[in-house]
């Protein structure tokens, strides 16, 4: 039967993760993960509790591991390696950043090795079968907003990558936990006392990071593409009133392309994909300071005609 990661006790899950490893399927990609780090074991066990437990997958897209650099360094400023396919593309990071490093590493696998979609740096959510794409520079408040929407009935499709089809304006879901930074962590805890938030990764280059368990919808594990309907650029501005303003399509095109990992790499196909996407969507700039008002605004969005 299909058992889940959470159905295994933490001790047993940790043992499996350390020895044979676990294959985690998120959207169209699967990761084979091995780790001996307690923070990673606990984090995965909590945040991916409802994902299928797979220990004998024939194939994984990416083989990753997170382990201490070497045993001698265990006691003095311990550091860890992220490896993909048994090679470490990065310099080691401090132990206490383990889980955040792991999630970034998983994102990096997709950012650097996948070109069968146009990848936008964006949060993506779904309601009534239509996808909302929120591209945003770091610090624009898109993770906080997508965490809040996820906790209020929207289905999270991705917090990091909008995987846009090369034709037809479809977005492929890739649901993983939402990365919250610094003050956002407390904001989301205060916003919803039921929010499940994983262990803190401290002193990262982005400050303190923690992840929200985001697969709250019955279809969260699905990887069926969803038709895109809205492209909205959010901006958190303390004290501001909630404002949703139409954005010119040409301007949206340029701003969204700027947030793409591989738009120029794909050349003409990238251009065509973006034309399809922007043509199919209503486009807005959005300024907010109050999460409840923001959610109400988004709930009232009309489907494009």
């Amino acid at each position, binding site marked *: 039967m299909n058992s889940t990661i959470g159905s295994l006790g933490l001790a047993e899950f940790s043992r499996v993760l350390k020895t044979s490893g676990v294959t985690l399927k998120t959207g169209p990609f699967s990761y084979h993960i091995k780790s001996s780090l307690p923070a990673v074991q606990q984090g995965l066990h909590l945040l991916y509790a409802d994902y299928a437990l797979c220990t004998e997958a*024939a194939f*994984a897209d990416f083989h990753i591991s997170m382990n201490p650099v070497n045993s001698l360094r265990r006691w003095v400023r311990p550091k860890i390696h992220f490896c993909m396919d*048994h090679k470490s593309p*990065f*310099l080691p990071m401090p132990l206490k950043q383990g889980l955040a490093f792991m999630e970034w590493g998983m994102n990096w696998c997709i*950012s650097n*090795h996948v070109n069968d979609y146009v990848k936008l*740096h964006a949060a993506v959510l779904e309601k009534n079968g239509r996808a909302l794409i929120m591209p945003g520079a*770091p610090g624009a408040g898109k993770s906080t907003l997508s965490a809040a929407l996820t906790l209020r009935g929207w289905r999270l499709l991705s917090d990091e990558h909008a995987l846009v089809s090369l034709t037809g304006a479809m977005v492929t879901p890739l649901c993983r936990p939402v990365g919250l930074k610094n003050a956002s962590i407390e904001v989301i805890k205060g916003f919803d006392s039921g929010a499940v938030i994983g262990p803190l990764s401290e002193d990262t280059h982005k400050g303190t990071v923690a992840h929200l368990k985001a697969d709250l919808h019955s279809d969260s594990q699905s990887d069926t593409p969803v038709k895109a309907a809205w492209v909205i650029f959010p901006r958190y501005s303390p004290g501001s009133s909630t404002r949703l303003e139409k954005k010119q399509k040409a301007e949206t095109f340029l701003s969204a392309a700027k947030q793409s990992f591989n738009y120029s790499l794909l050349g003409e196909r990238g251009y065509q994909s973006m034309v399809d996407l922007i043509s199919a969507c209503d486009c807005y700039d959005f300024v907010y300071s109050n999460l409840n008002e923001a959610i109400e605004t988004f709930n009232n969005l009309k489907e494009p005609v």
Partner: protein
Amino acid sequence: MRQSFCQLVKLLRKPDLLAVLTLEQWDLLIPQARHSLLLGHLSILVDRQGVREKIPSVIMRHLDSVKVVSDKQIHSVNWELRKLGEAYDTAEDSIILLKGAAYAVAGLQASQGRLFSDIDLLVSKQHIDYVERILSLHGWVSGHHNDYDGRYYRQWMHEIPPLRHMQRGTVLDVHHTILPPTGRYHPNPQKLIQSAREVVNGVKVLCPEDMVIHSAAHLFHEGEFEHGLRDLVDLQELLAQFDQSEPGFWQRLVPRAIELDLLRPLYYGLHYVQTLLGVSLPDEIVTQTNAAQPNALMRIVMDCLFEHAFAPDHPSCDRALTGLARWMLYVRSHYLRMPLYLLLPHLIRKAWKSHMDTPEKLELNIDGLQLPKPKVNRWHFWAK
């Protein structure tokens, strides 16, 4: 040589196996090919075999994702070349491209699906200062090198320190000959320059024989074999193409290698293309290059070392002594590169420096996500 058990090498020998691989086999093959920079080549092999519809889409996406990068590089290098042409307008020499960039601009099949990290150029030694000045006026400047590195390059190596374009990030490696002047073999660069063929306005590539000889010489003088298998595939692709497209190629090859003082490296190149990749060569070429083979004991040792070294750098391909073999070849490459009285101080200095160096600082990623700087990512400048 014993046939390697490595999945990737097996497949390069028999590409018709592509259509019948199981998912478990792909699970090993994709990481091996990723490490060896041969994922894009697999995409090309799939199409040559005409078996695209037999490969699962979860597999094909990885092969084609690299092909996308390779196509973009070919496009970019042609564009970059126009810029180089503008910079070079007033220079007396024409530009001679080497290796990956040359294959791309000459439209050779070796460039298909292949990635490269920089553009290698060959210019006459007497023009090198002039060329460096011209290039710096057009934005290509020397990267962060200390005095020691600069001196090491200029005094002992066959190139100047890499030049990076200030805006576009493209890297030029400007050589004045193809092997270090301190080394054992001394091909005359003027001979290479004189025989070079123009492919685009003012831009040349080595003639077919020289291209093959250079590819072999380069491969067997490298210290790190991370991309050794890819370089061997280059050689295979060049030979396959010139066999078809260049009348008299085989007759000219060995005499040219003798003229350039590079018969031994050519022997090695052709030997391993045959034994490892299963390429068959004309009998007389095998006989002629065998004249340059080392003695029987040396052959056994080298076969053993290279068999390890050409295996993808992935745990699934490691056996006992693989690490030792790689280390011995690393030492060998330096020994070929310079005499011991130069080599020892250099290696000691490098060991000390890598011990003392603090980690490089964080690099801004495209999404503003700061991750520790990838250790090997020169090609990704092309990706943007």
